[in-house]
C-alpha cells in the first residue's frame, strides 16, 4: 500500500478521490504514526482456534470510548495471559486502517496486564483451573527423602535465598550434596528458566528439589505462579520444596509443591536431617544392638547348658531304667523257677546234665537238688 500513488481527478474544478485512493492515502499517512502504549479495558474478546487473528475492543473505563484492536493468534497465545473481558491492560501497537472496509483499528504487538486487581483475578482463575485438574490435591504430595543423595536448588544468582538454603543445609548436614541452578527469579524470562532448571536438575540425579526465592513485590513473584512453573513443579518426578516469597505470599508453585517452607532456612531444615541427632540415634541403636547380641548369646548358652545337663544324666537314667526292667523280668523268672517246688520238699535228681526221670543203673553218681542246696549220692 505504501508508495501507492494517491491520485485525485479534476471534476468541475474539484479534486475528487476514489474511496480506494482515499483509504490508501489515509492508511499511508497512519503508518507514519509511532507505535504507542494504550491503556484500556478488554471487551468483546473473540478468539477462535481456526482464526489466524484475535479481535477485541479496548474500552476507556471512564468515557466508554472504544478502539478496535487485533492481534495475530500465535502472538496472543504465546503471551499466556488468559485474558477475559473487563480486564485492564496496556496494549502496545500501531494504528492501522483496513482499507477494504475503511475500518480503523489498533494492530497490537504486545499486551500486558495492568493493575494488581486484574493480576489477582487472573491468578485466581488459573488457580481454580489447576485445582480442578487436581494439581494441588493433598494425595499428590510425596514425602521427602530422609537423607537426600543430591539436593537440586533452583534460585537466583547471588541471592540471599541461595545463601540461606546452602548454609542451612551445610550446618545441619555437612556431607550433603547440593547442585545449584541459578535462574532468573523475576521478569519475563524467569518462568522458562525456572522450568528448565527443574527438569535439568532432575535429569542430573537430584532426588529432591528446592525452589528458593526471597520476598519481592507481587509482580516480582508472578513467575512463580506461571502455569509452566506450576506444572513443572506438580509434574516433577522427585519431591519439590517451595520456599518462595514471605509467609503471607502464596504463589501457585507453593500449592503444587510437595512441601511448602515459610523461608529458605526452613527449606534447608526440611530437606536434610540433623546429622548430630542422626549420630546420637545411631549410637543408641548401636548400643541396643550390642546389648541384644549379648542377651541372645547368653540365652543360647543357657539353652545349650541345659541340654548338656540333661545329656549328662540321661545315660545313667536310661541304664537305671534298663536295670529296673531287668530286675523285674528276673523276679518274674524266679517266680517261674522250680525253686518254689523244692521249698515244698521236692528234690531234683540229676545224673550229669540230665534230669533223672527213670531209675538209673546201680552205682550211677547222681546230684540231688533240694531247697537249701545240692548233694551228691550213688544209686544202690
Amino acid at each position, binding site marked *: 500500500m505504501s508508495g501507492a500513488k494517491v491520485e485525485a481527478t479534476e471534476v468541475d474544478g474539484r479534486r475528487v478521490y476514489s474511496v480506494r485512493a482515499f483509504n490508501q492515502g489515509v492508511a499511508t499517512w497512519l503508518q507514519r504514526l509511532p507505535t504507542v502504549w494504550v491503556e484500556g479495558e478488554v471487551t468483546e474478546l473473540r478468539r477462535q482456534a481456526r482464526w489466524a487473528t484475535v479481535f477485541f475492543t479496548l474500552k476507556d473505563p471512564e468515557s466508554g470510548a472504544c478502539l478496535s484492536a487485533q492481534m495475530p493468534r500465535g502472538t496472543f497465545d504465546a503471551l499466556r495471559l488468559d485474558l477475559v473481558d473487563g480486564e485492564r491492560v496496556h496494549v502496545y501497537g500501531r494504528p492501522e486502517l483496513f482499507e477494504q472496509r475503511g475500518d480503523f483499528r489498533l494492530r497490537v504487538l504486545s499486551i500486558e496486564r495492568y493493575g494488581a486487581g486484574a493480576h489477582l483475578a487472573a491468578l485466581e482463575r488459573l488457580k481454580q483451573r489447576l485445582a480442578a485438574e487436581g494439581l494441588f490435591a493433598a494425595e499428590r504430595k510425596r514425602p521427602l527423602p530422609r537423607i537426600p543423595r543430591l539436593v537440586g536448588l533452583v534460585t537466583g544468582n547471588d541471592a540471599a535465598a541461595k545463601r540461606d538454603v546452602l548454609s542451612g543445609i551445610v550446618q545441619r548436614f555437612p556431607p550433603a550434596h547440593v547442585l545449584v541452578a541459578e535462574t532468573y527469579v523475576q521478569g519475563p524470562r524467569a518462568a522458562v528458566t525456572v522450568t528448565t532448571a527443574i527438569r535439568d536438575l532432575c535429569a542430573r540425579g537430584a532426588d529432591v528439589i528446592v525452589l528458593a526465592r526471597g520476598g519481592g513485590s507481587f509482580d516480582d513473584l508472578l513467575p512463580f505462579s506461571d502455569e509452566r512453573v506450576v506444572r513443572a513443579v506438580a509434574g516433577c518426578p522427585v519431591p519439590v520444596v517451595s520456599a518462595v516469597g514471605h509467609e503471607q505470599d502464596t504463589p501457585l508453585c507453593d500449592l503444587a509443591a510437595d512441601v511448602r517452607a515459610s523461608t529458605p532456612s526452613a527449606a534447608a531444615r526440611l530437606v536434610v536431617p540433623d546429622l548430630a541427632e542422626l549420630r546420637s540415634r545411631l549410637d543408641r541403636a*548401636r548400643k541396643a544392638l*550390642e546389648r541384644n*547380641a*549379648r542377651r541372645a*548369646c547368653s540365652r*543360647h*548358652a543357657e*539353652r*545349650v547348658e541345659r*541340654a*548338656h545337663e*540333661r*545329656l549328662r544324666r*540321661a*545315660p545313667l*537314667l*536310661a*541304664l537305671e*531304667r*534298663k536295670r529296673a526292667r531287668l530286675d523285674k523280668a528276673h523276679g518274674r523268672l524266679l517266680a517261674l523257677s522250680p525253686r518254689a517246688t523244692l521249698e515244698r520238699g521236692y528234690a531234683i535228681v540229676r545224673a550229669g546234665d540230665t534230669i533223672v526221670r527213670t531209675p538209673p543203673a546201680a552205682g550211677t553218681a547222681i546230684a540231688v537238688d533240694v531247697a537249701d542246696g545240692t548233694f551228691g549220692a550213688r544209686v544202690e
Partner: protein
Amino acid sequence: MNAGDGRPAFEEAQRELEQIVERLERGDVGLDELTTLWERGEELYRVCAEQLSSAEGRIEELAQRAEDT
C-alpha cells in the same frame, strides 16, 4: 551360620543335641546305641559351646572396636 568347614551350624547342632537328650530321656534306646548317642551328644555340645564362646569373643571385640571409634 554354617561354618562352611563341615561343622554343623550352631542351630542344627543345638537341635540335634536336644533331640538326642529327649530320646535318651524317653528311654527307648538300645543299650549299644545308648553310648553312641551319648558320645554324639557330647560332641554336639562341644560344637555348640565352641561356637558360642567364639561368638561371645567376637561381640567383645566389636564392642571394643565400637568403643574406640
